[in-house]
């Protein structure tokens, strides 16, 4: 066997296996853990939203009652002012129409005893 050739042969022990499988190491939490964590966070969030909605309702109630409590005094003040203006307007009307017999100053345009505020302001 000495014809000057040396046949190329596999290394001792053979070639190592070809790496064709995916090599992705497992990192982080598993799917079940992530899913349940997200679910837990969402549950907490919605619970808090619910609490906040209840609280908002109570804040609105507080706001409404603080206004209801001061309505009478604001209305009373406004009424005095409206009455003062009405009386002044009536006096003006009397003065302007004094030479006109049969004129009823301050007579409502409506045939009703219900209070009907003036829609026209004479300055």
């Amino acid at each position: 066997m000495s014809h000057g050739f040396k046949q190329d042969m596999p290394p001792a022990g053979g070639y190592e296996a070809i790496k064709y499988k995916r090599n992705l190491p497992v990192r982080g939490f598993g799917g079940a853990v992530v899913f349940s964590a997200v679910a837990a966070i969402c549950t907490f969030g919605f619970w808090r939203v619910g609490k906040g909605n209840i609280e908002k309702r109570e804040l609105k109630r507080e706001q409404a009652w603080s206004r209801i409590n001061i309505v009478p005094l604001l209305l009373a003040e406004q009424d005095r002012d409206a009455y003062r203006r009405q009386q002044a307007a009536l006096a003006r009307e009397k003065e302007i129409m004094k030479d006109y017999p049969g004129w009823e100053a301050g007579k409502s345009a409506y045939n009703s005893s219900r209070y009907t505020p003036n829609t026209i302001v004479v300055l």
Partner: protein
Amino acid sequence: MASHRSAVLTDQPYTDPNPLPSSVPHVDELGVTSAPLKSASFFIGQHCKEVNEDFMLCKQENRDPAHCLAEGRKVTRCAAEVITKIRENCLAEFDAHWQCLEKNNQYFQACRKPEKALNQCVFTKLNLTKSIPGSPEGQAQIHEKASPIFTRVQK
């Protein structure tokens, strides 16, 4: 009020210098701005409940401003009395609370700390408590809640 034009006068202010007729007894107007009024509202509501209800029932009878002037004077005197009493007894707490309201868009939820001090002071000195009608039974009312979710607008 059906009218084809709004009662907004842009060219001149709607003023009338004529005084109230002398037949109407004089009462000093409250002269309180919105924030102090809001701060004191629940105490006014509690202390003046009877006169307020009387006035509102009178208004329900007739909407004419001339109809409820006497009741209205009582309402104003009562509210003035409450404001004076609060200012006499709890001036620092009252000022702290309404100034906080003034700086926080008049949100009650932004001013719970000064409100707590004011409520405490008014309760001990004047025996008035803030209570919100219609709040859920058996729970702390919104202004007494230990850890509320809505406090103040983040800046």
